């Protein structure tokens, strides 16, 4: 039986791994260490027999606890190669300035978590046994907030800083209502979603937040006090939210039209 996670949720119950990860652990635990290590080698997630990184973290911690140093080093190296692959894809030089430094920082933070786990037995690595890639996204977000560029490289249009200025033109307002509003089912199309995600990623951070919250279905403002609104979440005036939205829509429309034309 794989050892349970130690990390507790806010309600006091323990975190658990998803059933498919538990199944992997049970399956791999029965295999001899040498054979197990060979199975860990795969890099391509599409390859059959690819062992998920969540399982690698479990066996990494197990190897350390049992003093199996050679096994620990091998799993460490495989895991770091996977992290590197993920970081080079997520924080590519093409996506943002200073990408190499940001990758260093995320890798460094991940190493810190492993080291602390080995030295002091805290439980933050538990998150990596639940959903490894997503936990890495959390670390990435945290690092980007500290040292990342405020916008990525692909900002498409001239940006304005007068968020709180006068209302922008009717033309933009119309454009924004046309965007998605006319055809929300477009969001179900994976190609459109991918293009949209890339386009949103290219927006200035303030506009990016507004668009992301709109896509999640949050209202800009509301007369009902207990409704969570974008203006409340972002702690700004609802007119500021609308202006950011309209500028973002205008930029997104241009990018997506260009995308479609290609």
């Amino acid at each position, binding site marked *: 039986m794989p050892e349970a996670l130690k990390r507790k*949720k*806010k309600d006091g119950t323990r*975190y658990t791994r998803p059933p498919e990860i538990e199944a992997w652990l049970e399956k791999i635990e029965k295999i001899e260490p040498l054979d197990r290590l060979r199975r860990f080698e795969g890099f*391509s*997630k599409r390859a059959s027999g690819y062992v998920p990184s969540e399982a690698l973290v479990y066996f990494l911690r197990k190897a350390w606890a049992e*003093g199996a*140093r*050679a096994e620990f*080093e091998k799993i*460490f*190296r495989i895991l*770091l*190669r*996977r992290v590197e*692959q993920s970081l*080079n*894809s*997520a924080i*590519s030089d093409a996506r943002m300035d200073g990408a190499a*430094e940001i990758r*260093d920082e995320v890798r*460094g*933070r991940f*190493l*810190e978590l*492993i*080291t602390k786990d*080995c*030295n*002091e*037995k805290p439980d*933050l690595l538990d*998150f990596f046994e*639940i959903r490894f*890639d*997503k*936990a890495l*996204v*959390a*670390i990435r*977000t*945290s690092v*980007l*907030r500290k040292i990342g560029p405020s916008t990525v490289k692909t900002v498409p249009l001239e940006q304005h800083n007068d968020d709180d200025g006068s209302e922008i033109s009717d033309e933009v307002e119309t454009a924004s209502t046309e965007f998605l509003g006319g055809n929300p089912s477009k969001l179900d199309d*994976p190609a459109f*979603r991918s293009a949209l*995600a890339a386009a*949103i*990623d290219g927006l200035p*951070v303030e506009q990016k*937040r507004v668009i*992301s*919250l709109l*896509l*999640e*279905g*949050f209202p800009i403002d509301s007369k009902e006090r207990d409704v*969570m609104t974008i203006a409340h*979440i*972002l702690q700004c005036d609802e007119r500021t939210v609308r202006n950011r939205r309209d500028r973002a829509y205008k930029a997104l429309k241009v990018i997506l039209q260009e995308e479609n034309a290609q």
Partner: protein
Amino acid sequence: MTAKHVAISEEEVLLAFAVEPIHDHQTLERYLGEYPEHANALVDCSIELMVDATRSDEVSLNSEAVVDQAWQQFQAAVGKPVDGSAVNPFATLNPTAFKSLAKKLNINNLLLIRLRDRAIDAATIPRRFVQGLAAELGAPADAVMAYLCSPPAMVSGHSFRSAVKPAVTEQISFEKAVEASHLTQAQHDALKALKD
């Protein structure tokens, strides 16, 4: 504020949010409601998760040099060579056990941290003190001495920061460490009495 309220770091909140099985309106709203102080971070994380869902990791990459460097950094920071010749006897102590060990040795946490991080020249530590430390740790005195004699550790939390070149603390003598650790006069005198 109630005594039960425990501050949770931005990173911990983001990790908890990121590993949720679904990232829909309800999940985000729940986290925004529970951690309004981390609202921007949560929204930023939900954007990164959205961008992440549409990309592929299939980049061809030769990462051996980076992985080698990461392994060396890890070894230096963990203070535990792979051959196990100098096992860190402090490794299994949680913060409470660490404090309790300091109390049993009649020293404070600061001096114990200096010992743990090998910021003190092992040759200057009184033998009787090492024996007492080993007895409390439940480890052979030789093993504890071997650990204390190995190279000083990098300060945890700064070891991997790329902006700062990783560096180890220069070791000081036991006597100097005792003087600089804000011990009480009684603790000071007791340690002096242990001198070889």
